[in-house]
């Protein structure tokens, strides 16, 4: 009996109807297929945010997906629209866009007038009917939708089903509107009801107990088994769903869009114009002439671009880069695009094909049949100019940012679920705050135990269950960092567009993964702080030098620079300044550009998990001893001494050693990326092993290669990406070495960026002999600057003072430009500073030239008499106040409070005698302790890291007046002394000293929190994954 039953669910919301749906789109599709539904419509509320995920899932099953959306219109009118065809889909996209753009972010506004004005002629309309519906709405809707209108009858066993069926029959007879069954589905199984209640409570900002009738009365709003449906619904209503499903014949695979046809001169076709530009670029890049191989590569790439019809895409990216360059904005392509000679010639990327063995298939391949993804980094402070250029050039109807789906994480899940369940606020707070940024994605019972809460308490078990269920649930849409989608046609007919939080920003309802899945082209307009810093450095140098320095002028291969890098003198240097990088540098000792490329790539989870690091370092010491199975393998792995470090090498190995085609090799690469989450490498394993075996490679070699591939996982770096970054790493290292003051000044003026806080950058600069002058009301500007008179000096700017705005600085500068300030009154009156601005400058000790020490300056600034029209000169006179000058320690503490750093003695230096009595070493004297001996060190905690590959180990960086100490805390100690580790500002570590290649680590045995010794000091630690 069940086999003959057929049903299509036409009204179903997923969790992309935020805080309403209690199931993922994939779960709904999967379950509907399992139940034997013919089709399922995902009809999220005024949204298509979840349809792509549902679409991908349906490909695994024999079930049809219908695209639709539900709307709640004024006066209690509830409508579901289902796209019949691509025209209907476009109509729905437009309708959703209009409704969303009509309202603030996250909301929509649709009226009958809007429905009326926007003709929907290619959609089925389901009037979701209940006993409170206004029958006259039938007349209105019938006029709009004609024969495509149905009443959607939901029978949730709420005691009114009979009445609803009776009304439906009446409407059918007298209004000629047929009825069809629909589930008003909110979840795929009944077991999700508690979660549905919880998210409703979150939505209404109340508790589950107090939701009252806003809760669903039962759990019937789920995907029901066919037999149940047959029992509840009259047969004609079920049959109608099949008819409608059959008539809806649209698939997202039909969504194709026309990339904007660039503004190409009339006499050229797009490919001709692209070729012309590429050849022009070729001349610029290689004025001495081009190698035959380059010519061949260019030809190959252009042919593929033409075949895949990507010319306009490249031209668009080229246009954006040209715009940036015309404005003097530094930019550089990164990622797989750096494998392209065409991109190099166009100036999009800067990786010279002569220096690298590029693999174009890593970027584009016919077999992959996916659009290219070009990421371009721009200076972070000027990226907005580029974004506005895109909007202006293409118009808001044709350009929009991709979305990012913000999902629940452990902390937010605990807070929202706890509140919904009515847990006491301080208990929720306690639970949430004790989650550390590295804590597992799933919260277990042990976690409750740690907090002293009863693990077996039913209530808490319920809480845990719901928290874990809601993690990864979408919460709302936000804008992607810089992923643009640009279309020739009206974008709102391709995908719905809605308002972002930022003014004048709009986003599409799909995220990056959705776009990739549908093959839509995206350009990533990204921001990179280091580009800003480099540009500023070059500008400062040019200002005080006799020449203008550009990136092109920077000589490559400077051995002194590489020596400095090898000594790990890299604070502030791009990509190689982290604790882990600085530990590796003295071991790897990069001596040329390619060494840097390897350095950047090797300190990553991929090579670490693949156990490539030690073999590489060992071979580096004795490169002559490295052997290869044959010349072909040598060609692939020679540059990395026989150890595969890059994704491209894995691909090449698969091609050369196992006979994969380039496209297959790229598929292998993609499977590697997703292997940890989804599996799927198995099908490649046998092919790889068989291929290598057929080509005469040993079993051992084949297995070793496959093991390394598995280890790569999703963390392996593309060589091209590392190469792009290595360029910037070298440039920044060169600038630091030869122009330390200008470089540090640029870093300070480009904050926030980088690994280190201004305090560490300043300390490092001082160690290199740079003189740092404090903020001075008579000399400083907003930005820090390098005086022309002394290029090894930095004058700190007002921007380093917390809370000091650019506006304040500009006022000071403008007034001072005319005549310098003579007194505080003069400053206040001419710069029109408010009391709070003046007090801020006083506490920052910037008023010293005018008012003496900071206490006096503060006192004076509090009592300033402003000039009035009738009383231009002060009328109040007072004697000198008896204020004590601050002691050195007090100055330092005040500096930290206002600036976060001090130019005075390091705070730890005040405690040195006390520390010495406890036999605690300085950072520098720790190097004198023999290997494997016990020692103690103490310092300010400036960083904590817990890399994902480190199995629970935490790396701590301490700072004292002599330098830094890198400590390793093993998981056992982390658990035992969690409080001291996580909360301490000033920490003492006892442990074993380990030296290796001039890199020192302290393996912690015991931690002691000495924060109270420095209580008023306000420092911040940078904590990373």
């Amino acid at each position, binding site marked *: 009996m069940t086999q003959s039953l057929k049903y299509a669910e036409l009204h179903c919301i997923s969790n992309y109807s935020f805080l309403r749906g209690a199931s993922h789109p994939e779960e709904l599709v999967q379950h509907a297929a399992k139940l034997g539904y013919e089709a399922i419509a995902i009809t999220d509320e005024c949204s298509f945010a979840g349809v792509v995920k549902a679409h991908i899932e349906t490909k695994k099953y024999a079930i049809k997906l219908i695209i639709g959306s539900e709307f709640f219109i004024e006066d209690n009118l509830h409508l579901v629209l289902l796209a019949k065809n691509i025209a209907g889909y476009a109509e729905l996209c437009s309708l959703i866009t209009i409704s969303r753009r009509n309202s603030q972010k996250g909301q929509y506004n649709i009226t009958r007038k809007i429905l009326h004005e926007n003709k929907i002629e290619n959609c089925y309309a389901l009037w979701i009917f209940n006993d409170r519906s206004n029958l006259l709405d039938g007349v209105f809707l019938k006029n709009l939708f004609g024969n495509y209108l149905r009443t959607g009858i939901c029978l949730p066993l709420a005691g009114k089903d009979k009445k609803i069926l009776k009304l439906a029959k009446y409407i059918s007879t007298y209004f000629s509107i047929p009825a069809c069954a629909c589930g008003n589905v909110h979840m795929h199984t009944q077991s999700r009801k508690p979660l549905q209640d919880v998210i409703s409570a979150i939505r209404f900002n109340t508790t589950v107990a107090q939701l009252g009738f806003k809760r669903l*009365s039962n759990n019937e709003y789920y995907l029901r088994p066919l037999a149940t449906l047959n029992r509840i619904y009259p047969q004609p209503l079920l049959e109608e769903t099949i008819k409608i499903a059959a008539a809806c014949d649209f698939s997202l695979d039909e969504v194709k869009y026309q990339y904007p046809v660039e503004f190409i001169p009339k006499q050229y076709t797009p490919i001709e114009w692209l070729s012309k530009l590429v050849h022009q670029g070729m001349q610029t890049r290689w004025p001495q002439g081009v190698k035959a191989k380059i010519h061949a590569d260019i030809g190959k790439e252009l042919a593929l671009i033409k075949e895949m019809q990507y010319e306009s895409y490249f031209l668009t990216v080229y246009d954006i880069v040209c715009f940036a360059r015309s404005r003097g904005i530094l930019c550089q392509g990164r990622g797989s695009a750096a494998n392209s000679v065409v991109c190099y010639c166009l100036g999009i990327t800067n990786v010279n094909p002569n220096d690298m063995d590029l693999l174009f298939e890593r970027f584009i391949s016919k077999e992959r049949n996916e659009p290219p993804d070009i990421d371009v980094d721009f200076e972070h402070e000027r990226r907005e100019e580029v974004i506005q250029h895109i909007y202006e050039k293409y118009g808001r109807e044709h350009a929009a940012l991709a979305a990012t789906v913000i999902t629940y994480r452990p902390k937010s899940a605990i807070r929202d679920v706890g509140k919904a369940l009515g847990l006491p606020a301080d208990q929720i707070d306690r639970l949430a705050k004790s989650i550390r940024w590295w804590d597992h994605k799933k919260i277990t019972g042990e976690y409750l135990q740690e907090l002293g809460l009863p693990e077996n308490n039913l209530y808490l078990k*319920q809480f845990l269950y719901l928290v874990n269920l809601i993690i990864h649930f979408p919460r709302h849409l936000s804008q992607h960092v810089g992923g643009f989608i640009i279309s020739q046609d009206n974008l709102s007919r391709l995908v719905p567009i809605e308002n972002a939080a930022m003014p004048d920003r709009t986003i599409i309802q799909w995220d990056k993964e959705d776009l990739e899945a549908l093959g839509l082209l995206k350009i990533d307009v990204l921001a990179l702080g280091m580009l800003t810093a480099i540009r500023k450095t070059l500008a400062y140098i040019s200002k005080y030098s006799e020449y203008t320095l550009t990136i092109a002028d920077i000589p490559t291969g400077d051995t002194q620079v590489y020596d400095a890098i090898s000594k790990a003198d890299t604070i502030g240097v791009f990509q190689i300044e982290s604790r882990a990088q600085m530990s590796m540098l003295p071991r790897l000792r990069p001596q040329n550009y390619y060494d840097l490329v390897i350095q950047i790539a090797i300190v990553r989870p991929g090579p670490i998990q693949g156990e490539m690091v030690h073999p590489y370092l060992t071979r580096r010491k004795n490169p002559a001893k490295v052997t290869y199975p044959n010349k072909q393998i040598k060609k692939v792995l020679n540059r990395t001494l026989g150890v595969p470090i890059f994704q491209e090498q894995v691909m090449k190995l698969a091609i050369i050693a196992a006979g994969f085609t380039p496209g297959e090799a790229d598929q292998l690469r993609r499977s590697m990326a997703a292997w940890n989450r989804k599996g799927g490498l198995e099908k490649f394993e046998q092919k790889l092993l068989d291929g290598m075996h057929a080509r005469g490679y040993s079993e051992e070699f084949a297995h070793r290669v496959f093991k390394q591939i598995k280890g790569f996982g999703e963390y392996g770096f593309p060589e091209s990406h590392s190469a792009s970054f290595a360029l910037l790493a070298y440039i920044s290292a060169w600038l630091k070495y030869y122009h330390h003051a200008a470089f540090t000044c640029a870093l300070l003026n480009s904050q926030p960026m980088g690994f280190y806080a201004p305090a560490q950058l300043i300390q490092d600069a001082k160690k290199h002999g740079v003189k740092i002058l404090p903020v001075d009301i008579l000399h400083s500007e907003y930005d820090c600057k390098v005086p022309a008179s002394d290029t090894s000096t930095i004058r700190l700017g007002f921007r380093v003072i917390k809370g000091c705005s650019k506006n304040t600085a500009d006022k000071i500068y403008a007034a001072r430009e005319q005549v310098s300030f003579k007194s505080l009154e003069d400053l206040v009156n001419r710069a029109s500073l408010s009391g709070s601005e003046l007090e801020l400058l006083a506490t920052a000790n910037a008023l010293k030239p005018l008012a003496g020490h900071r206490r*006096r300056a503060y006192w004076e600034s509090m009592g300033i008499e402003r000039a009035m029209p009738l009383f231009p000169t002060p009328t109040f006179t007072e004697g000198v106040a008896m204020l004590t000058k601050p002691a050195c320690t007090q100055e330092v503490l005040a500096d930290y409070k206002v600036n976060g750093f001090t130019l005075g003695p390091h705070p730890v230096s005040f405690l040195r005698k006390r520390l010495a009595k406890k036999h605690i070493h300085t950072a520098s004297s720790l190097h004198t302790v023999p290997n494997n001996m016990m020692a103690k060190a103490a310092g300010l905690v400036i960083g904590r890291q817990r890399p994902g590959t480190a199995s629970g180990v935490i790396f701590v960086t301490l700072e004292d007046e002599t330098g830094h100490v890198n400590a390793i805390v093993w998981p056992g100690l982390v658990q035992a002394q969690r409080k001291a580790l996580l909360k301490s500002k000033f920490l003492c570590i006892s442990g074993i000293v380990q030296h290796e290649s001039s890199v020192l680590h302290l393996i912690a045995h015991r931690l002691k929190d000495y924060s109270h010794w420095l209580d008023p000091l306000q420092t911040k630690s940078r904590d990373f994954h």
Partner: protein
Amino acid sequence: MTNIAPLQQDQKQLSFSIERKEKTENFHRTLWLCIYFPKLAVHSLEISEGQSNPFVVFEAETQKRTIHYASTAAQQLGIEAGMDLSQAYILCEQIRTYQRDQKKEQALLKLLADWATQFSSCVSVKYSSSILIEIRGSIKLFKEIYRLQKNITRQLQEKNYLSSIAISPTPLASFIFSKASKNVVIEDKNLLRAELGQLELQYFSLDHKSLEKLHNIGVQKGYELFRLSPASLARRFGNGFCRYLNELLGITHENIVSIPARNSFYDFYEFQKDQESLEIILMHTDILLKNLVRFLIQRDLSTRELNFTIYSSNEEELSIVVSSNIQCRDKKIWKNLIKEKFYSTLFKNSAYKISLHVNTFETHSYNNEDVLQNIRRKNSSDWNSTLDQLKARLGEKSITTLDSTEDYRPEYSFIKRTYTDKQFFKKKFLSSPHRPVWLLETPLRINNSIDNLQKSHNIERIVDGWWDSNFIQRDYFIAKSKDHNLLWIYADIKNQGQYFVHGYFA
């Protein structure tokens, strides 16, 4: 202004200045004792400090929870007042927490202030967690300051209240000293400056902003503050700040308002012979009532509670409390209530005396609207009196009403509200049209087959209550029995579909 007899001009001036001088001298001769209770929050919550487990009392201001008081055991773990509560949890996961209740603190402080009136008629609760007592006059009674101080300390120790006491010529200075646990005795105003100069500014009850500004200029102690010129301070911190310092040092007078003296009414009647007749006793309550009403009218007061005491030769005194929901001084109303109450009280023995004591009063409101105003009924005053009478006869807890709640579960869709509930008089609404008039408190299990019942197929499925351990999973429907009764029946899905009758429709 004192009336001055016509005198010569210079004599007039002299007497005025004498009068003024006398006033000033009187002021200078005041002496203020301040008792500061550092653990008032703990005392008000009746927490026993003796427990070895650490505990804290926290304040909850909007979302922020900060520690107001940390027990000794908690302090040993590094927990301090002012700390965020979540930080305390990190230091001690098992810490017990109590939320501060300022209303209870105020009530306790008032009680203590009342207690303090035995030492002086001028008692003030102007400063938080402290009592100010003007003791210049009391010294004569107690012969000397130290004796008085000792007396107060002893009494407080007997009550187990932790306190610190300071005495000085100005109220503010006394408060500051006591808060800083400086148990000083300073009689001479000129010594104030030197003593206050040694204190940290944090005890000076300054606002946070001023304190921060003073710290920014390096002023940490009193003497550093006093070094700065008043005019400069006024300029920077405002005249209010200088006024504060002047009051602190006794340069100007600080206004102190004493707590009002308590009113109370007490009257009694002694019978010539022991009375057993309730009517006669009631007759005499009338007389007492009449006197009370006169007392209330004279003071423009009303009351809500009358405390009668019946004295018997052979038995303990019998206390009878007659109360009204509204403040009242209407003789007729009270008479009815008294009658109801007395009639419902069991008198075992004869009475020789009856007394009436009233000690809680309110200012009489002529436009007083009684709390029963929300009931839209005719003759609402009759209804109010009826309610009062019912309450007097049966007790407050016996009067309840039904109200509906937004809950799908039938047994939780109604709530009983007692007379004292604020929502007693809220407008009612029906939650669902398909609920029977008579809902059985305990559903009746149907052991026989239900085939004889005519069932409607309009099922109402209710699956709700998973969060509070009262989870139900039922299918409700209406059924008609053979004798045409409309039943509300459900199948308990959790209980293998067992049928129950839950109610009857009218």
